[in-house]
C-alpha cells in the first residue's frame, strides 16, 4: 500500500464487507438475495454481480504537461500559431486548426476567485477529512482549480493571494498540485 490506489481499494472493500456479509447470509438461508429496504421494508433484490470500473486514460497527447509535474511545474499548452494558452492543456488548437503547442509553465502566483469546502465526499474521497476546493486566477490570467491547503477556511476571501505547490499529496503519494495562502 504505497499509494492511494491500493489504500482506496482496501478502504472500499472494508466499507462494503459487512452489508454484503448480511446479504450473503440471507441468500444462504432463504435461497434468494432478497432483503427488506432499510427505509420502507419493500423487498429489494441485491445484485449478485458487482461491476468494478477503473478507466485507463490515454495521455499521450498531453504527456509533456503531465510529465512536467515531476519537475515540480504546472504547465499549460500554448499554441505556437496564435499564442492562445490552454489550461487544462490540450494537443490541438481548434482556432488555428493546427497541432503545434509548446509547454507554457504557469505562474505559481494568483488570487482566489471562489471556493467551497467539500463536507459530504464522494465514495472515492471518503477517506479524506473535509477538503477545500478553490479556483485561483494566476498571473497569466489562467484559472486553475485545485485543493487549498488551509487549516481554517474562514480565513479565505475573494482576492486572497495564493501560491501553487506541485508535490506528492500526503497520504495519497502521487504528484498533484494545490494552493497555499501566499
Amino acid at each position: 500500500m504505497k499509494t492511494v490506489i491500493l489504500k482506496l481499494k482496501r478502504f472500499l472493500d472494508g466499507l462494503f464487507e459487512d452489508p454484503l456479509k448480511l446479504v450473503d447470509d440471507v441468500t444462504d438461508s432463504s435461497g434468494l438475495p432478497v432483503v427488506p429496504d432499510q427505509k420502507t421494508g419493500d423487498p429489494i433484490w441485491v445484485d449478485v454481480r458487482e461491476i468494478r470500473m477503473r478507466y485507463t486514460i490515454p495521455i499521450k497527447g498531453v504527456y509533456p504537461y503531465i510529465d512536467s509535474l515531476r519537475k515540480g511545474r504546472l504547465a499549460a499548452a500554448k499554441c505556437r500559431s496564435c499564442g492562445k494558452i490552454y489550461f487544462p492543456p490540450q494537443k490541438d488548437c481548434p482556432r488555428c486548426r493546427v497541432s503545434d503547442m509548446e509547454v507554457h509553465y504557469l505562474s505559481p502566483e494568483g488570487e482566489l476567485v471562489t471556493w467551497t469546502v467539500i463536507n459530504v465526499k464522494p465514495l472515492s474521497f471518503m477517506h479524506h477529512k473535509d477538503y477545500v476546493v478553490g479556483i485561483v486566477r494566476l498571473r497569466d490570467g489562467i484559472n486553475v482549480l485545485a485543493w487549498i491547503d488551509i487549516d481554517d477556511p474562514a480565513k479565505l476571501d475573494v482576492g486572497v493571494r495564493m501560491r501553487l505547490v506541485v508535490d506528492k499529496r500526503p497520504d495519497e503519494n502521487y504528484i498533484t498540485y494545490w494552493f497555499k495562502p501566499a
Partner: protein
Amino acid sequence: MRNVAIVGVGISRYGYRSDSNLAELAWEAINEALNDAGAGVEDIDTYIVGNTGVWSSEPLPAVVIGEYAGLQPKNGIRVEAACATGLAATRTGYSLIASGEADVVLVVGVEKMNESTTPQVVELIGRAGNYFWEFENFGLTFPGYYAMYATAYMKRYGATEEDLCMVAVKNHHYASLNPKAHFQKRITVEECMSSRYVAWPIKLYDSSPITDGAAALILASEDVAGKFTDSPIWIRSWGYANGTSNLSRRSDFIGFESTVVASRMAYRRAGIDPDNPVKFFDVVTVHDAFTIAEIIGMGDLGLAKRGEEYKLVREEQTYIGGLIPVNVDGGLKGKGHPIGATGVGMIVDLVKQLQQRADKGRQAPISKGMALAHNVGGTGHYVFTAVLSVDKP
C-alpha cells in the same frame, strides 16, 4: 416546420420509490399521459426516453421501457444531457414532429437513483463536469460545483445563507401542495439554517434530494392534435446552449452564460422582449438543483436584475401573487430531482398551470397564456429553455 402541441401529460409520484423498478416507474407516467390524451400505445409513432442511468441497473432503458409499455417494435432511443436530459429528450421529440418525421411522439423521462447508495450517487454526479482535470484529483461534488457559484455570488452581492434558505422555504411550501412531490412538508428558514453543510456554503436543505421519478408527454403535430384534445398547449420556441466542461475555464461564478444564450434564443424565436421577459409569462420554472441555482437562474433568464435576484426572493415576489411565480410545483428542491425526468416534469406542471388545472393552492393566475421552462444539466454544462403557450403560434 410544423407546430407541435402537448396533448397529454403524466407524472409519477416522485420520491424514494423502493416499490418500483425503472420500467414500472416509467409506465406510471406513460399510462397517466396516455389517459390524459385519450390515446393508446397504437397512436404513438416513436418515442424518446430521457434517462441518465449509471446508478440504475438497466443500460438500455429505451428498449426495456419499450418492451414493458407494449411499444415494441416501434423505435425509441435514450437521450441524455445530465440534469437537462428531460428537456433535451422533449426537444428531440419536438424535432421529430416539427420536421414531419412523426405525428405523435411519446417523451418519457425517468430516473431510478436509489438503486445505488448515496455515496455512490455523490461520486457519480461529482464526476459530471470534466472528470480527468476536476474530479480525479480534486473530488468535487455536485453541491461543490454550485457552492463555488454561491460563494462568489454572495461575496459580490451581499446575499446571505438566509436568502438561499428562503428559496427552499418557498419551494417546500409549494411541494407541500403537490401530492406528487418528494417532500410533503413545509420548512422554516431556521430549520434550513440549522441543517448541516454538504459543501459550504450549501447546506442539506439548500439541496435537491436524490429522487426516483418519471414524467411523460404526448406530443402531436398540429395536423393531428385536435384528435386528442380541444385545449392543447403549444411549444412556442426552444433555446439551448452549453458551458465549458471545466469550471476553471469560466470567467466569473455569478451566473451561467449558457442560460443567458439559451434563453435569449428562445425569447427571440417567440417574440419575447429579452429586456422584460417577466411581462410575457404567467409562471416559470427555474432549474433549482440548489437554492443558489434558482437565484442566479433568475438573473441569467432576465427575470431579475443581476445581483438583485435574492431581493425578489426576500420580498416574496416569486410566490403566486408576486411579480413572477417561480417553481410553484415545488421545484427540484421540493418536488425532487429525478435527473432524467426533471425537465419533462417541469413541462407536465406548466401545461397543467396553463390549462388551469394545477393542484389547489398552487395555481398561478393565467392571463398572458405563456410559461417558461428552464432545465440545466450539470453546472451550466447544458441548458435548455422552452416557451409554452395557450395560443397556437
